[in-house]
């Protein structure tokens, strides 16, 4: 039975995502919002690869999100106006950074690990701020835009056509999601579950825990960088706020809100959070307080997240 439920659930999710441009406007949304949900969902799912499935508390993912974004923006602006190339540069830069930082923190655990991820996250925020000659400092990288995708004969105008961009983002989202799902269901993925469930036991089964955590960390940062690249493309702009500590917190709350233990949880969490944020910021100046309150309420009353509650109801 659970196998069928799962397949049905997956099908429903994909159906909703593929048809989104059709029904979004009817529920008071707009296509850009849909794209934004996709991007944050990807980021939250990438984070959850580490948080929910490996059991590692990373609170500094915005750094790699931001590196992906800045890499993309700077490439188009200064290097060569090609969207795929720009994304490649952004993602590679972020992944390399993650691969290098990883060994420094992979021996740490719990709150100490979290502290260090926050601190390292801040390093990149600081660089984005200070290195204003390159990054534009607080003003960010502007006066550029995503390039239409040229495939020889055909061109997909993701610049002017919001729908085209949505499907472009969806395609990338699909590839990334499939890759993550694939990894999680493999023997390697199971070693990550083992580490989450009982690190000591994993170690005593011969699993080199630190090395696997490092691998999970790099994979997670890779996918979050893809989300970051898409973020830059969506906005045709990037500024240090993409890298700030609150961005990292947002990713985590999305994963928790949707349900950390489930694959699609972060997608649901992202959808709820982005819609809420969108609504609040248009209603009041003090939307930040409400978001903060939201964090508090989720943590106190909803720690297992939406899918956690659903699962419990199904079990009983």
């Amino acid at each position, binding site marked *: 039975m659970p196998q069928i439920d799962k397949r049905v659930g997956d099908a429903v999710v994909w159906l909703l995502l593929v048809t989104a441009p059709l029904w979004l406007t009817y529920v008071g949304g707009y296509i850009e919002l849909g794209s934004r949900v996709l991007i944050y969902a990807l980021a939250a799912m990438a984070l959850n690869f580490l*948080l929910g499935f490996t059991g590692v*508390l990373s*609170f500094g993912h915005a750094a790699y999100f931001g590196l992906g974004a800045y890499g993309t923006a700077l490439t188009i602006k200064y290097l060569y106006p090609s969207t795929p190339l720009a994304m490649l540069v952004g993602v590679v830069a972020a992944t390399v950074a993650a691969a290098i930082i990883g060994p*420094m*923190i992979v*021996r*740490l*655990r*719990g*709150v*100490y*690990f*979290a*502290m*260090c991820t*926050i*601190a390292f996250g*801040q*390093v990149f925020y*600081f*660089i984005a701020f*200070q290195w204003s000659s390159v990054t534009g400092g607080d003003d960010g990288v502007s006066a550029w835009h995503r390039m239409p995708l040229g495939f020889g004969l055909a061109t997909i105008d993701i610049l002017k056509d919001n729908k085209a961009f949505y499907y472009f983002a969806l395609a990338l989202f699909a590839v990334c999601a499939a890759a993550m799902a694939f990894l999680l269901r493999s023997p390697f993925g199971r070693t990550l579950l083992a580490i989450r469930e009982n690190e000591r036991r994993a170690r005593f089964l011969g699993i080199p825990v630190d090395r696997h955590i490092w691998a999970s960390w790099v994979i997670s940062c890779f996918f979050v960088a893809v989300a970051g690249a898409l973020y830059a493309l969506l906005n045709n702009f990037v500024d240090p706020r993409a890298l700030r*500590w*609150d961005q990292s*917190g947002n990713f*985590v*709350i999305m994963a*928790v809100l949707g349900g950390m233990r489930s694959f699609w949880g972060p997608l649901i969490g992202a959808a709820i959070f982005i819609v809420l944020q969108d609504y609040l910021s248009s209603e009041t100046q*003090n939307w*930040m*307080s409400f*978001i*903060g*309150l*939201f*964090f*508090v309420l*989720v*943590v*106190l009353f909803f*720690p297992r997240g939406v899918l956690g509650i659903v699962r419990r109801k199904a079990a009983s």
Partner: protein
Amino acid sequence: MTQLLLFNVFNGLIIGAFYALMALGLSLILNLSGVINFAHGGFLAIGGYLAYTLIPYLGFWGALVVAPVLTAAIGILVERVLIRRLYGRDPLYSLLLTFGLAFMIEDGTRFIWGAQSLPYRIPTWLAAPLSRSFFFLTGYRVFMVALVAAAVLGLFLILNRTRLGLRIRAGTLDLETVSSLGVNVRVLRSLNFGLGIYLAGLAGVLAAGMLGLQPTVGDNLIMPSFIAIIVGGLGSLPGTLAGGLLIGVASGVTSVFFPSASEAVIYVMMAAVLIVRPRGLFGEEGRF
């Protein structure tokens, strides 16, 4: 050249003292309750703003005394109502909670006191330079360092000479045993939290005098406090103190030779410590 160096080292010491004050509060809470209080910067801001509001009624000195206490009270309230519920759980949740609190405090202070920078008036005699050759040695700066030193000394005395301090120290090592010895752990945690927030509030009042007041005043100080703890060593208060001073001075000295790198150097120090000695300079093994 020496003037410049001295200036920057002294400046670095002041900043280091700030970092240390913040970091000590953070460290206290982290060591006993395992909570990373991301809202610490927010409490610093509250301390400063409360003092600002109290000055017309209590004067500079009155505000200096009362504001941190009020802040600590708010802190204890927050701990009892919110944070207490999360102690048994994964540290993820308390960190998310304090994140949320940080948002709320930052926006809240903006809402109550406005987004503009507020001026914080200090007594003129304090602001005057003490010496003609060492012009940077204003009374206020010396006063700040002295006050921080006094606060640290006070903390040291509390921890080592009072029963509360003994319980906190024991609880940091083994909370279960302390509990089974009949100590009310809930009250202990609250008081410890309050103590940590008191230090944040105090830092806020002092910072107001030097940097002025904005809703984001705590933002800039919280990250160096993290790094002070990482560098100095997890679980060790003397380490945190040393860490704070160290990164402050390093930052100050660097600003003489590579002014733009003065903030970056503390991140470099953090990376270095993590590579060479992950538990920190004075950290205890097995703390993580």
